[in-house]
């Protein structure tokens, strides 16, 4: 028995650990920049942290749940059906 195995079966932290979950999406969020007052509530409530500090939605990972559109106080986010 060697003291330490060289290659340990271990998961390592990585973005996109579940693949590109953006493909799950049916409706995608579209931000109306004129209505947006940059309050940041959408980024705060996004379960997948797909909205960054500049409030840009990362469509690779956004699952299209629509919480951002529902919680936006200015109603600046609209959920639009994904075209494939």
């Amino acid at each position, binding site marked *: 028995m060697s003291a330490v195995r060289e290659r340990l*079966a*271990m*998961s*390592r*932290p*990585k*973005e*996109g*650990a*579940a*693949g*590109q*979950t953006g493909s*799950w*999406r049916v409706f995608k969020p579209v931000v109306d920049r004129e209505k947006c007052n940059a309050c940041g509530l959408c980024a*705060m*409530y*996004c*379960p*997948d*942290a*797909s909205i960054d500090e500049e409030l840009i939605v*990362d469509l*690779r*990972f956004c*699952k*299209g*749940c*629509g*919480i951002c*559109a*529902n*919680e936006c106080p200015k109603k600046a986010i609209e*959920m639009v059906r994904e075209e494939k």
Partner: protein
Amino acid sequence: MLKCTSACAGCSDSLALRYVLKAAGPDTVMVVPACCTSVIQGIYPNTAFNVPVYNIAFGAAAACASGMSNAFRAAGKKTNVIVYAGDGGTLDIGIQAMSGAFERGTDFLYICYDNEAYGNTGMQRSGGTPMGAKTTTTPTGKTDAKKDIDAIIAAHDPPYMATACAAYPQDIFKKVQKALTFRGPTFIHILAPCPPGWRYPTEKSVEMGKLAVKSGMWVLYEREYGKVTIGPQSKAAMKKPLPLEEYLSPQGRFKGIDTKVVEILKQRIAKNYQRLAADEEASA
């Protein structure tokens, strides 16, 4: 926590978890028993968690954390040990290990996120399911009341315990930070609305959490060395409660609920409010 977990769209557990990990910082070890969180880590060889995670059997999470915490303290490290368990792993299966760890005074934080059923196996009834809710094993609605785990924990007299709701992330952040400053066992109970299980559209996760607090189905409070403080959100709800029907009607699991059951739920809410208000007054 990194972007992209394999959680369902609109999962409020991953929302709560983000803020728990943000508050805990990098010097943290997680112990996760079988629950949704052990699924949302992602697929080997990648994980969405940026901290070490120990996946363990349902009934052993608190016992494992107990040993871990003791080992860290013996080595002179201040690493936070956090158990992140679901309601099944806390209220039903993990309760004896948890009770033991609280009795021994282990220095750790136990977080129970409560989606009120066994989520990842297909929404079977758990001890946390409220009365009248339909699950796959109670198709006509549960006939028994929700187990009051907070009272059970309070009986262990931990230095700090709190309830939180995934719809108030800043509140979770504050409570986790506060809990980690205490030496000894601490407990946070987070309500995590579950879109597929509660049968409501995914965009309403946060709204549903807020409705739960506003209607009184969920009360936010802290208990610090026996001193109860009711949160401002729940204080407002106590003064001006939202009708319970507004919380029940958007959820598919309460569809066709008996009016008698609604009455019982309302009575329980009133009783719970009274008890907590009395506790707060007595400890002030």
